């Protein structure tokens, strides 16, 4: 393959990508005490792909997600999102506390200008999907953290988004609940084939869920390495395949973290 052909192939892949970042940088603050949150990051997420972003503190994971969500603008570079709709889940459920579970999901549909009978039907389907059909009348504060995140997931999927951004959505949950939500998310994703960009600091979680794990460096955030996870689904977080890959990614991550300690000492 000539260089031109390779370039063309790369361009084509990029054009087909659901999310594509080309040389994206994000700098906070002015020139004197600027923080380079992201430094010339290029990254693609193919349609239907599940990509996990992992890195230590200060690698700009959440910044990157905000850029893709359109909640923030890059300092330089191009962010392209090709999809009908992008939705997002946060570490906190960000449910509206004055609405019941049912009304929280329904509001997403109302904002999409759906008629009342359709809304009722869709809310029922969505709550069934996350196994919360019996808890529609509860308010968020009456639910456990895991149930709140499942409600948030139902809400995020209500508008039939084809791109789902997840910012450490299970970070605040206990291990048992997180494990079950991994199963649930994987089952949902297998059915719907959304393009997912999932940010986490938990290496095992990344390997458990992702088709691909992208490791970012810290300050400035750059892509350090990428790992393709070819373990068959459904996976288990405690399977030896997952553990083995997670161990080698963790080694690489620690190397990255150590570098900052050396910098600080020297």
């Amino acid at each position, binding site marked *: 393959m000539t260089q031109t052909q390779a370039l063309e192939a790369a361009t084509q892949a990029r054009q087909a990508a659901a999310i594509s970042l080309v040389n994206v940088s994000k700098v906070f603050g002015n020139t004197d005490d600027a923080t380079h949150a992201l430094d010339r990051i290029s990254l693609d997420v193919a349609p239907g792909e599940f990509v996990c972003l992992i890195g230590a503190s200060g690698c700009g994971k959440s910044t990157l997600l905000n850029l893709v*969500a359109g*909640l923030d603008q890059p300092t330089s570079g191009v962010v392209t999102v090709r999809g009908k709709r*992008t*939705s*997002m889940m*946060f570490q*906190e459920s*960000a*449910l*509206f*506390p*004055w*609405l019941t579970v049912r009304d929280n999901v329904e*509001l*997403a549909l*109302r*904002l*999409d200008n759906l008629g009342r009978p359709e809304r009722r039907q869709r809310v029922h389907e969505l709550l069934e999907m996350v*196994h919360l059909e019996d*808890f529609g009348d509860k*308010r*968020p*504060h*009456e*639910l*456990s953290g*895991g*149930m709140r995140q499942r409600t948030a997931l139902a*809400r*995020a999927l209500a*508008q039939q988004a084809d791109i789902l951004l997840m910012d450490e959505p299970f970070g605040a949950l206990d291990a*048992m*609940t997180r494990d*079950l939500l991994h*199963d*649930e998310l994987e*089952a949902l994703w297998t059915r719907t084939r959304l393009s997912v960009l999932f940010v986490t600091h938990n290496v095992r979680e990344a390997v458990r869920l992702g088709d691909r794990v992208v490791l970012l460096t810290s300050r400035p955030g750059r892509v350090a390495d990428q790992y393709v996870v070819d373990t068959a689904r*459904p996976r288990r977080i405690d399977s030896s395949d997952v553990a083995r890959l997670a161990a080698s990614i963790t080694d690489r991550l620690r190397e990255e973290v150590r570098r900052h300690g050396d910098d600080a000492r020297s």
Partner: protein
Amino acid sequence: MATTLEADLAGLDALEIAVPRRRSRAARIWAATWPKIGAVTLALMLWQLLVWSSWKPEYVLPGPATVFKALFDNLGTYIAASAVTLQRAAIGFTVALIVGTLIGALVARSRILRSAVGSMITGIMTMPSIAWFPAAIVLFGLKESAILFVIVLGAAPSIANGFIAGVDNTPPILMRAAHMLGARGWKSFRYVVLPAALPTYVSGLKQGWAFAWRSLLAGELLVQIAGQESLGRSLDNSRQFADYPGLYATMIVILAIGILVDSLIFGQLDHRIRRRYGLVDAAANE
């Protein structure tokens, strides 16, 4: 696989949903009431002790028994006076509610208005309502409208401030979530900002009521309208005609109405909203 997952989730949900321990309605009412009864009893006892100490002659500071006898002997007069005063309070507070909410909404939505009048609203709140009366009498004469004017000036700033503070304190995470759901402009205001502001707005109403009630009574002392027996006028008459049991009886009526409206209307509203929003620990307050 799917069925196992379903069963696992159902099991975990059942374990994690807290089952609030509900007491009977009577027990809850009793638990909320007995400290209040205790406090009132204590206050009456201190009052009686003060009378027994002969700090002042008994015709100047009569004991609780004498005062309550005066209160019940003239109950009809007090009810009529309360009706006049409460009607003024209702009209004044309603106008203040409308004015305060409108100003609050405008200031909360407009950056220019906020820098122009935002701090002035708090400034007006620091002005004692009694200081408005000379101007109010000059502008409106010795009429009911002078009293209403001062009630509105007293209560509207609290209500406006409550609204503005509520809007300002909308959690940013909810705004981001709403933005991702496609809520912009009016829709995000209507579906997110307004409901998020409600608890603080209601606190503003509660404070507004306290200001309104105070301004009203000050007004009724100064602006007395012939043929209208109000609580403020009753207070003034009792003093002038040296009917001291009547004076204290009127004060008790004023205090009781202020407390009752505050706790039964605004307190209940406040508590309900807070419980609905999960801002109180349901188990502790049930």
